[in-house]
């Protein structure tokens, strides 16, 4: 019932996005020495959320609008970084990946904090101490 609240929904989408992006970064770091590997990344949360999930349509029955739900998955896109290509065709830069990883951690922490605080407010509304 709580996923009808938009702020919880948004926090959930943000945490999911952070987790997916962490997967992409882990892939880049693991392949930092693979010849010919192109670094991948996801679009930022702001872009994906606005594009796919800004105003969700209400389904009258479970199973409707399944396609829409699938569209929400952020698509991996190649990260173009001119000049950072090694002679073996690899475009991963460990420094940039570390920056992105710190970003992801912050995003995930933020999402969880929002979720937790909202739940606290709900609990306070129910008359319990948060």
């Amino acid at each position, binding site marked *: 019932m709580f996923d009808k609240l938009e702020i919880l929904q948004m926090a959930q989408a943000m945490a999911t996005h952070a*987790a997916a992006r962490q997967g992409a970064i882990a892939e880049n*770091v*693991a392949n930092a020495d693979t010849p010919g590997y192109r670094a991948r990344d996801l679009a930022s949360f702001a872009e994906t959320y606005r594009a796919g999930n800004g105003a969700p349509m209400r389904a009258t029955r479970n199973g409707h609008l399944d396609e829409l739900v699938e569209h929400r998955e952020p698509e991996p896109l190649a990260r173009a970084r001119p000049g950072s290509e090694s002679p073996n065709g690899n475009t991963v830069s460990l420094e940039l990946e570390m920056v992105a990883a710190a970003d992801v951690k912050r995003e995930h922490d933020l999402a969880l904090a929002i979720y937790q605080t909202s739940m606290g407010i709900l609990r306070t509304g129910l008359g319990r101490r948060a």
Partner: protein
Amino acid sequence: MNDFATSLSRSASGMQAQAMRLRFTSENIANADTPGYHRKTSSFEEVVESGRPTGQVRLGPVELDRRELTRVYDPGHPMADENGYYDGSNVDLVVEIADAREAQRSYEANLRMFDQARQMSSALLDLLRR
């Protein structure tokens, strides 16, 4: 949670590949004075399962460095020919040390990604505990 599982397995595959690379490096260094030893090298490659890259990485097949062996002048050596030369190894210690250092750095990067994914998933689980 699935995203975290993928990140963890990707980071783990990266660590494994780097550890394997370090193994070859130590093998080369150990055999730096073995007559006729060819340096072992290997290249990283993406793991592909049923036609799709999984994002994991592994070490490709081992190859031998085809550079010429160094000719060492030592008439007292049991393997020396009539001119007093024998074939040494083609291991270059400086290259091996640089390779080992790079493997260590990449291993650390993978380890950090692993740790971050673990922290993120445990922060998520902490929400359930309260």
